[in-house]
């Protein structure tokens, strides 16, 4: 039941924001902050309770809750968490809190509706991470889509309408294919067993013809790799990221992309194991293409948010490659990558947002020498630039190292190609650092260095990424309990 509360708090918090903003516009952000903090507290409590205890193999699922929803169609409200969900939920509310904080000053118009959308997106995301009924999963998949679309459409930058449409159409196209796949799975399973159900555990027992399994899996896969995103389905991402407000970019990069990876791990691999093994080589290949292509694209960009967006494409390529290596080391690396990429890229987007607030531009050719007037921000930016290029001590290194080490056992050639990503990531990261913070000072006006509120956001992110680099085992132990 506690899991249901997580979602209810967000949904009702969102409604409350919208309603109260009519009378007290300032109240909305406080309500939103309280809502996410409440959820974060609940989760931390769960983590303390179960984070260590489950390891010993007492059971895969830490908390489960199931109640009938639409019984006539075999739809139930079935939610549960295991280590993977727990980690992702922690990430969700961690970044969610920061997303509220970094909207504090940025959002001035229609704040109530803004926080409503923000919280509902978060609700959709957390729903996706806990749902164990495929219909429910699809439901949440859509819940996170629409508010995000509105966030980009209403509070985005100049070209927001185009970006919002593109984001919606891409994701929706994938979502519909997934719905088809869910339905076919539902009917095949129903015809086999006689009981029609969307439940994850029932569907796991479905016997599928290899050909059918392949097609049904592709429906899921396409939905998930569009979200991930995999090259060539990535082109919604740079537009959506660059036009979205800062919190939107943070949630997109930090959380929405992760639902794709989560979907593959949670649904594709268990439901269609053999079919997944069959496409493993291709999936890894596309992952590697993504790593290199994303890095090359990032190197060429002059819009700072587009640049960071393409680095996401590159980093998520590691995720895809790692998942389909089918090695435990790589899989742990994938989970680490999901978490650390969320934090590091989220932080870069937050920084980009702060720069944009001060300079009113995203064009890096108009920046330069910002370190002189903002040394503290420069220091933090250096930290996350290094995180993004995979410097040890920071969490991303653990992730990429484990992924590469695991995939090396599966496929040497692809791993060597993927490793070139390490060189390319240095190329685009240092170029970004040079254009923005180093070099001759270009802007004449005096810029204010980070404020106390910004300091809290950035310090939390920095501490998180360093702790993940030094004590990754904390995360891995929780996820290990999945086995």
């Amino acid at each position, binding site marked *: 039941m506690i899991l249901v509360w997580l979602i209810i708090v967000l949904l009702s918090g969102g409604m409350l924001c919208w309603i109260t903003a009519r009378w007290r516009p300032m109240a909305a952000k406080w309500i939103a902050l309280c809502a996410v903090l409440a959820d974060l507290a609940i989760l931390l409590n769960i983590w303390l309770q179960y984070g260590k205890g489950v390891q010993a193999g007492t059971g895969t699922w830490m908390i489960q809750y199931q109640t009938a929803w639409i019984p006539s169609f075999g739809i139930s409200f079935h939610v549960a968490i295991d280590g993977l969900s727990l980690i992702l939920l922690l990430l969700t509310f961690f970044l969610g809190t920061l997303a509220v904080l970094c909207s504090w000053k940025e959002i001035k118009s229609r704040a109530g509706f803004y926080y409503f959308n923000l919280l509902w997106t978060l609700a959709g995301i957390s729903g996706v991470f806990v749902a164990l009924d495929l219909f429910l999963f699809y439901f949440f998949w859509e819940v996170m889509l629409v508010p995000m679309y509105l966030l980009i459409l209403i509070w985005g930058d100049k070209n927001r309408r185009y970006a919002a449409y*593109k984001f919606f159409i891409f994701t929706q196209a994938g979502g519909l294919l997934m719905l088809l796949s869910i339905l076919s799975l539902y009917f095949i399973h129903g015809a086999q067993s006689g009981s029609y159900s969307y439940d994850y555990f029932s569907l796991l027992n479905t016997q599928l013809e290899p050909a059918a399994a392949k097609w049904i899996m592709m429906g899921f896969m396409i939905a998930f790799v569009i979200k991930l995103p995999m090259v060539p389905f990535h082109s919604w991402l740079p537009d959506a990221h660059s036009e979205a407000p800062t919190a939107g970019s943070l949630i997109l990069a930090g959380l929405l992309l992760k639902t794709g990876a989560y979907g593959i791990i949670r649904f594709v691999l268990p439901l269609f194991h053999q079919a997944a093994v069959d496409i493993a080589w291709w999936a890894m290949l596309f992952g590697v293409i993504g790593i290199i292509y994303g890095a090359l694209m990032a190197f060429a*960009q002059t819009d700072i948010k587009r640049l960071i967006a393409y680095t996401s494409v590159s980093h998520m390529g590691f995720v895809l490659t790692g998942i389909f290596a089918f090695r435990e080391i790589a899989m742990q690396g994938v989970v680490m990558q999901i978490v650390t990429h969320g934090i590091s890229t989220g932080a870069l987007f937050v920084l980009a947002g702060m720069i944009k607030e001060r300079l009113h531009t995203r064009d890096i050719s108009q920046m330069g020498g910002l*370190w002189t007037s903002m040394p503290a921000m420069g220091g933090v930016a250096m930290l996350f630039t290094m995180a993004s290029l995979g410097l*040890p001590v920071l969490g991303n290194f653990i992730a990429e190292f484990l992924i*590469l080490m695991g995939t090396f056992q599966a496929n040497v050639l692809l791993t060597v190609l993927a490793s070139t990503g390490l060189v390319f990531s240095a190329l685009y990261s240092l*170029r970004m650092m040079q254009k923005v913070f180093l*070099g001759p000072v270009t802007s004449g006006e005096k810029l204010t260095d980070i404020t106390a509120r910004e300091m809290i956001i950035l310090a939390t992110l920095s501490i998180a990424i360093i702790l993940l680099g030094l004590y990754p085992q904390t995360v*891995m132990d929780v996820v290990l309990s999945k086995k």
Partner: protein
Amino acid sequence: MQEILFLIPALPLMGFLILSLAGRHLSKQVIAVVGAGVVCIAAITTIWLGINFLQTPQENGAYTVTLWRWMNVANFSCSFSLRVDALSLVFLFVITFVGALIHIYSAGFMKQDRDYARFFASMNLFVCAMLILVMADNLVLLYLGWEGVGLCSYLLIGFWYETTANVQAANKAFYITRIGDTAMAIGLFLLFRELGTLDIPAIQNAAPEHFTKSSPLITSIALLLLAGGMGKSAQVPLQTWLPDAMAGPSPVSALIHAATMVTAGVYLVARMHAVFQLSPLAMNITATVGAVTLLIAGCSAMVQTDIKRILAYSTISQVGYMFLALGVGAWSAGVFHFFTHAFFKALLFLAAGAVIESLHHEHGIFKMGGLKNKLPIVFYTFLAGAAALAALPLVTAGFFSKDQILWYAWSANGGSPMLWFVALAGAFITAFYTTRLMLVVFWGDVKTHIGEPPGRLMTWPLIILAVLSIVAGFIEWPHNMLHVTLFSDVVQKVLPAVTEKEGVPSESIFQLIAVVVTLLGIYTGYLLYKKNASIVAKWKLVSALVGLRNFFFSGWRFDQFYHTLFVRPFVFVTSLNKQDVIDKIYAGIVSMFQWLNGIFSVSQNGSMRTYVISVLIGIIFILALQFFL
């Protein structure tokens, strides 16, 4: 005793944290005390630890301490554990001791700088990373230190970041070393796949049993590790970043790009000697890389005009000697040369920094001159360093270490007359360019106004290093002269002893040749730059010689070569595809639908006449079908 091991890297780390978090609120004095103080305490701790280590040898030959478990996944586990054996101890001593002197020097050298705290923070972080590198018990932790020193090198080369050229030099250093690092990472994956562990002692034990000697597998591992070492140690073909790295402040060049970081590759190869020994081919390649590098860099050093670039090329060349020694199997000789080189090269860079500072940031040696009497302390210390670099027989540390390498280049098992000859040619070149540097800078007429002489904070480190540049060699004498082998006795507890070939002529003949060649090099320098300067002037009229000089001056055109081969195509391709060609596909789909929309919407134009006509056409069409079918 081994419990305090963690203090050695933790102290500089603490300095870094204090200075980076609170540095802007501290006064320069406090910053200097914290920044230099932590390294000095680390140095004292190291010396104390070293004395204990030598007095009471450990059972397994090492102090070890495990701080915490880092990762433990499936069959892979590694910890934050430190391990100090004789080899690490040598490196530890040099890093902390020379590092401390350089920090003290920097307190005086950088005192005018706005970003005093940032400088010391980065320097402290560097020392910490370098210490982790040499104390690491497993290769993943070593890799952590390895990347950490890369970061600090990047931060410090680009320390004066407002000049674009400095930032580009910093980026270049990072990019090129990163290529080596990636190769090394792949080497680690391969090692792990084969042995299932990355702990260094475990690898040493398991490798000889697991791998068959000279199998392609072990050769690839060794070569991948070597590539990592070549990147960090600026060996051909990954050497081009080091001369540009001189954009950083002089103490940085001394600490990172001469004394410690560039020898990380030497440490890696020596540390992984069990792997390298299994592959004679990889050993040969190591030696050849060293030989080629020492020659290429030496030639470039002969014609440079920037005082720091001369020293930079000379560093590449000297590290080449170390690789040569390791490659022929003279492990201890290679490490010994690292040991002496750290003193005299750090000294030369610091003294050069003092010269540059006194001459108002003048780098060109031909604009210097006559400094002998004006800056006596700098002159005498520089002289000591230069003599050691040129390997002046018997009185300098450089002689003892380089003589060993020359001897083993022929007589060791992996050696050959060819390698010896290249090393000998290198000795001539080294003596020549060192003499040229000395004569041009310190003799002759004063050409630039001389500012304030360096203060005591700067001169004391120079004096200490100068003394060490002279005496550090006395702990290891050639076998045929004096039976003092203190250094190799310690190091050979870890590194295998050199195996010599049969039937090599007597060592004394080699020494004699080496001495003659060195003196000849010095004389040539004297002849061309002091006694008879008209020779050089005459050469400047011969276009072939000028061409050769420019070729050497540009570092054998490696930069231009890489620029056309890699940089320009890369930038071209990426900028060509800036708009993302894949996006065009989707844009194409959109325009196709818009086009179709345009066509079909014609049928919905709201005019009754067209509707009637289309209905009629439809009827006629159906009727026509009826008729014809």
